[in-house]
C-alpha cells in the first residue's frame, strides 16, 4: 500500500512537471510566433504585406530571425556594469514566465492553483520593471538611462491604479484565487459589471508590458531603442521575446479576470480561453498600429488625475453593491 501511494504521488508529480514544461514551451513558442503575427497584422493595417517569403505565409521568418540572432555577436559594452547587464534580460523573461504559473488556462490545466494568485501576478509584474530599469542603468548609455528613468516614472503612474482596478474583481469573487475569480463569472462576465476597471486594467496592462502607446521606455524615435540600446544578440532577443510573452500574459489575464477565462458554451474550455486571449493579443497589435505615444508627464497626469479617481470610485461603488446584495 505504501508503494501504491508513493507511486501515485510520483506520477502526479511527473504529470505536474510535464504540464509545466508544456505550458512553458507553449508560451515561449507562442510569443515567438507573435512576432510574426504582429508584423503581418501591422502590415495588413498599413496596407502592406509584412513577412510573407520564408515558409508558408512567412511563418518561418521567426525561425530565420532566431537563427540569425543566435549567431550575432553577443557584445557587452566595456563601460557597462557587467553582472547587472547580463541579469536584466533574464529578469524580464523570468518574471513573465513565472506569472504564467498562476494563470488558469482551464479548470485543470495550470501550474499551481495559488490562493493568492492575483497578488502573485501583481508582485511579479512589479518585479518585471526591474529588468528594464536595471538594463537601462547598467548600460551606462544616456538613451538607455532615459529609457530606464521613464520606466520608473511610468511604473509609479500605473502600478497603483492597476492594483486598485483589480480590487473590484477581487471583491466580486471574494478571493484572490484566479480559479475562483473565473468561476465567479459563470453567470455574468466581469467586463459587464466592472467595465471601468476593465478599461483601466487594459491601459495599465499596456503600460506594464511597454507596448505602444505606452512604449515610452523604448521610444525608437527619441531614444533609439531606449533601455535596450546597448543590447545585442540573444540578450536583445530575451527582451524582445519577453515583451511578446508579456502581451500573451496580459491578454490571458484580461481573459481570466474580465471575460470568464475558459467559460463558454459548446467548445472545450481551452479553446474558449485561446479564442479570447487571441482577441486581446490582436487588439494590442491594433493599438500599436493606431495610437500615438504620449509624453510621460501626460501619462502620469492621466494616470493620477483621471484613472486613479475612476478606480477609487469603482471600488466604492462595487463595495456598496456587494454590501447591498449580500
Amino acid at each position, binding site marked *: 500500500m505504501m508503494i501504491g501511494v508513493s507511486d501515485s504521488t510520483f506520477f502526479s508529480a511527473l504529470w505536474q512537471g510535464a504540464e509545466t514544461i508544456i505550458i512553458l514551451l507553449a508560451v515561449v513558442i507562442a510569443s515567438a510566433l507573435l512576432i510574426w503575427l504582429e508584423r503581418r497584422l501591422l*502590415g*495588413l*493595417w*498599413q*496596407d*502592406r*504585406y509584412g513577412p510573407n517569403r520564408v515558409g508558408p505565409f512567412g511563418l518561418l521568418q521567426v525561425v530565420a530571425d532566431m537563427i540569425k540572432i543566435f549567431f550575432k555577436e553577443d557584445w557587452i559594452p566595456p563601460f557597462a556594469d557587467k553582472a547587472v547587464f547580463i541579469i536584466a534580460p533574464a529578469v524580464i523573461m523570468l518574471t513573465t514566465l513565472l506569472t504564467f504559473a498562476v494563470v488558469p488556462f482551464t479548470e485543470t490545466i495550470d501550474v499551481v492553483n495559488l490562493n493568492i494568485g492575483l497578488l502573485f501576478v501583481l508582485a511579479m509584474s512589479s518585479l518585471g520593471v526591474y529588468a528594464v530599469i536595471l538594463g537601462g542603468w547598467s548600460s551606462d548609455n544616456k538613451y538607455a538611462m532615459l529609457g530606464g528613468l521613464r520606466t520608473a516614472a511610468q511604473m509609479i503612474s500605473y502600478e497603483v491604479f492597476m492594483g486598485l482596478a483589480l480590487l473590484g474583481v477581487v471583491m466580486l469573487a471574494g478571493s484572490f484565487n484566479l480559479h475562483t475569480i473565473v468561476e465567479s463569472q459563470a453567470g455574468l462576465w466581469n467586463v459587464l459589471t466592472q467595465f471601468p476597471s476593465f478599461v483601466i486594467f487594459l491601459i495599465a496592462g499596456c503600460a506594464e508590458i511597454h507596448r505602444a502607446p505606452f512604449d515610452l521606455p523604448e521610444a525608437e524615435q527619441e531614444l533609439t531603442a531606449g533601455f535596450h540600446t546597448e543590447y545585442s544578440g540573444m540578450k536583445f532577443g530575451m527582451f524582445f521575446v519577453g515583451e511578446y510573452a508579456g502581451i500573451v500574459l496580459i491578454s490571458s489575464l484580461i481573459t481570466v479576470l474580465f471575460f470568464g477565462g475558459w467559460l463558454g458554451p459548446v467548445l472545450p474550455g481551452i479553446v474558449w480561453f485561446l479564442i479570447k486571449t487571441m482577441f486581446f493579443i490582436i487588439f494590442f497589435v*491594433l*493599438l500599436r*498600429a*493606431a*495610437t500615438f505615444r504620449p509624453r510621460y508627464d501626460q501619462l502620469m497626469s492621466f494616470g493620477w488625475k483621471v484613472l486613479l479617481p475612476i478606480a477609487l470610485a469603482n471600488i466604492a461603488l462595487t463595495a456598496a453593491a456587494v454590501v447591498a446584495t449580500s
Partner: protein
Amino acid sequence: MLSVLRTIWMVLLHSFRKRDTVLYPEVKPYLPPRYRGRIVLTRDPDGAERCVACNLCSVACPVDCISVIKGEDETGRWYPDTFQINFSRCIYCGFCEEACPTYAIQLTPDFEMGEFDRQKMVYEKSDLTISGVGKRPGYNYYRVAGMAVGGKDKGEAVSESEPVDIKTLLP
C-alpha cells in the same frame, strides 16, 4: 479620447483595403521608357558604333565610374578602345546620357543587375554594346556633324552648306 477610438476603428477598416505593396519578383512593376537603369552603348542606323570616345560622359559622371580609352581607325574616325562602366559605383543619374553628343550612351529600364561578385559589376564594352539604336532612331552623328571622316568631307553632311573660303572677300 473619442478621437483615439475613432483612429483605432479607422485603422481596423484598413483590413479591407487593397494592399499597396507590389510583390516584386512575381509582379514586375511598370517602368517608363525613360526610366534610368542599366546603361547601354547603341549603334547608329547603319550598324556602326556611335561612340566617338570623346570622354564627355566620363567627365560628366559625378562618381567617375566610366573609363574610356580612345582608339582611331585608318580613316581618322575615333572609337573607344575600351569602354568600362563600374556599375557598383554608378548612381544612375543619367548625366552621361545628357552629355553624350552622339546619343551613344543611353540608360534603359532594367535594374535587375544583382551580382554576388563585385568585380562582375564592371561592364566591358562588349557587355554594354547593343545592336540597335536605342531611344534615338534615325540619328547618325557623322551624317549631320561637320566633321571630316573617312568617306565624308567637310560640307557633305545632311543640310550642311559648303565650307566658306575664309581667305577671300568675294561672296
